[in-house]
């Protein structure tokens, strides 16, 4: 399918290429997986409340009442992980001009023609958008979630809050599910080496050079050629 294969160099990596360089610290990985587990819990229980066809999902986490009790708490835990992610990665997530060019040519990325794209820093445009969309969604889910959490605390004179909250909570959750699906697909199946990097914390030089070239130059102290 990929016509660029014919113009690429032969895919043989050297020992130098396979040397490991650190990408995620231990704390970053722990926080990532804390977020992953808490999000997944909210996803499973949330889908159970979303449609009768998935209500059985509540059974695998202890039944409907248990799911209802813990869903908001896990939402809070997820918010905590998002806060620390914001502290850890917020600075690396600023969208720059290279990212905008990258975004304009995202078709090439989707078709695995990565060599047609401008060099990428520690995170690419897609990861940055995912990050900021998740941060924004977390805030909206938290605010609407509080209204839904304490049913008896919202007086009837403010019941319009419930109407707004239920729509926001469901819509934003759907957006995060879309983002989450893409995130999981790309990091486990699509981009080889990504999943391992979030487990072990390291990537190979070749991986860094291929997918995050600006970051590769930065961490290896090599100046960027041709510029």
């Amino acid at each position, binding site marked *: 399918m990929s016509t660029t294969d014919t113009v690429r160099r032969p895919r043989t990596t050297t020992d130098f290429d396979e040397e490991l360089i650190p990408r995620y610290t231990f704390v970053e990985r722990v926080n990532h997986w804390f977020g992953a587990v808490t999000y997944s819990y909210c996803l499973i229980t949330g889908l159970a409340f979303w449609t009768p066809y998935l209500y059985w999902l509540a059974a695998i986490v202890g039944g409907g009442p248990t799911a209802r009790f813990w869903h908001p708490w896990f939402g809070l835990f997820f918010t905590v992980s998002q806060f620390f992610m914001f502290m850890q990665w917020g600075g690396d997530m600023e969208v720059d001009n290279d990212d905008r060019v990258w975004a304009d040519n995202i078709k090439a990325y989707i078709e695995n023609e990565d060599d047609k794209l401008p060099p990428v820093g520690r995170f690419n445009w897609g990861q940055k958008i995912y990050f900021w969309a998740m941060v924004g969604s977390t805030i909206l889910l938290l605010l609407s979630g509080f209204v839904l959490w304490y049913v008896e605390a919202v007086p009837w004179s403010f019941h319009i809050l419930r109407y707004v909250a239920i729509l926001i909570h469901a819509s934003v959750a759907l957006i995060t599910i879309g983002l989450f699906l893409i995130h999981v*697909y790309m990091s486990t199946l699509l981009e080889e080496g990504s999943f391992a990097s979030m487990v072990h914390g390291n990537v190979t030089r070749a991986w860094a*050079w291929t997918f995050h070239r600006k970051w590769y130059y930065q961490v290896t102290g090599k100046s960027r050629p041709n510029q």
Partner: protein
Amino acid sequence: MSQASTEIIRISGHAGTVPGAGLNREFQVCKLVDTTTCIGCKACEVACLEWNGYTFSQTTFNNSYQTMPETAWNYWNLIKFNEHERDDGSMMLLMRKDQCMHCEEPGCLEACPADGAIVQYANGIVDFQEAHCIGCGYCVTGCPFNIPKFSPEAHKVFKCTLCNDRVSVGLEPACIKACPTGCLHFGTKSEMKDLAEFRAEQLRDVSGFADAGVYDPAGIGGTHVIYVLHDAKNPELYGGLPKDPHIPYSVWLWKKPLKWLGNLAMIGGIVGLALHYLRVGPKKEEPIPPEDRGPS
């Protein structure tokens, strides 16, 4: 309901036809509350507590006769009092017994995500099955009458059952039995509707209430609790009875278009990602060209 199951269709050793065969019986029940003959004695409130096994709790005084501001998870029947000043300056004490309306199209049931937590019987009673309730409170969002109440102790939601346990064995609801003035009636929906219309006509023609009428709102397909009001044009006067109740638009949006769009998007997304992988495959790392190696 119980009558439906005991209707005889065949009789052994019986000469002739089955008595009553082919008869069309109506099983839809209805409670009629005639606010014009209510004296605010609260016997219905007490009867409700007693029958349903709740104890008296502290009341909230708010410069009126009303026991508390609204019904509670353990107080399902509440007379709402309103001191209404009429155009001629005279005062009317409007009293309306507030409880679950048992809607024909119940918003609580529409909003509920828990399998079997809310059921609607063929006789029209909408009943909460607390054993299946998960305490999410979505029913509170779906109800246009502010009836389901969350119990922080039980983590479940409670409301009037229309005494389903009594009705199913041929008894009238406890509130009806306790009413001393006869302002509460119980029977089939059509009987109660006829009686209500008759009373409203009487109020219009004889008692000088030109706007008297029956409250059986169409927006939720009618209710199994109906009211006779002196002023049917202003139901809000009667403790905030909504003029045109309906299932909230946001609940409709959430449960109909958003649900189907969301389900399609989720399934479409998974299929799309799978197709993407089959079409373009994984991204693999590439060897670093010599000019980009070292010095570090």
